[in-house]
């Protein structure tokens, strides 16, 4: 069980102790500089010459999910565009074959 300290000597002692603490004199804008340091420590390290984006891109490329997705997009897009072009070429081939059959070059 706690007993309340009502001794007046203790109160004086406490007051003396509070007065005896030395409050350090902080440099100007101390708090601001502390926060700035914290932010700098949390931010990713900057590299020289502005090549951070290259490293970020390399890191992105090496991520398996990104690499697979990019490869899939490239393959599907390429195949679709190629198929469209192939369809056009097949149509031109067929047209040329019909023309050659009904209108030889000597008549055109």
């Amino acid at each position, binding site marked *: 069980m706690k007993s309340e300290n009502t001794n007046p000597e203790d109160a004086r002692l406490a007051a003396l102790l509070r007065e005896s603490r030395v409050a350090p004199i902080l440099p100007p804008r101390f708090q601001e500089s502390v926060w700035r340091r914290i932010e700098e420590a949390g931010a990713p390290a900057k590299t020289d010459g502005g090549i951070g984006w*290259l490293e970020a891109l390399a890191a992105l490329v090496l991520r398996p999910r990104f690499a697979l997705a990019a490869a899939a997009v490239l393959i599907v897009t390429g195949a679709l565009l190629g198929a469209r072009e192939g369809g056009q070429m097949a149509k031109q081939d067929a047209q040329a074959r*019909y023309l050659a059959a*009904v209108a030889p070059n000597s008549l055109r």
Partner: protein
Amino acid sequence: MNRSLVIVLAALVLGVALFGGSYFAGQRACRMTLANPADDLVWLRTEFHLSDAEMTRIRELHEGYRPRCAEMCARIAAKKAELEAALNGATNVSPEAAQKLAEVAALRAQCQAQMLQHFTEVSRTMSPEQGRRYLAEMQRLTLGFHEQTEQSMSGTAGHEHHHQ
């Protein structure tokens, strides 16, 4: 830095290779799938949305026209050989060469008239709209070449004859 650059460049090369490879594979597959070298009339069917009945009639017309066309082409080739013989070693156009030129031109005109007649017959087997489109397209494809040549030789295309 070098490592990152190598990784990005390698990824770019790989990406280009993937895109290019799939592009050409798709193009080749589609071209080979749609191609039918055994049939001259595939284009007509797809371009003018022809029914089986229309295709049957057009095939008959086509088969009837082919031998006549081949015969005319053989006659033109023979006449051209005569023209070349008449021009061979000549320093000017002899009356005989001029005569052969006229005969080649007459044969070509006769053959073209026969060809246009065939196009007209084919167009009649189609629906009116498709028939008109077919006729216009065939005239553009077969006679347009001469129009381009004539336009390029005329003054409107920037070429002028200067008579002194």
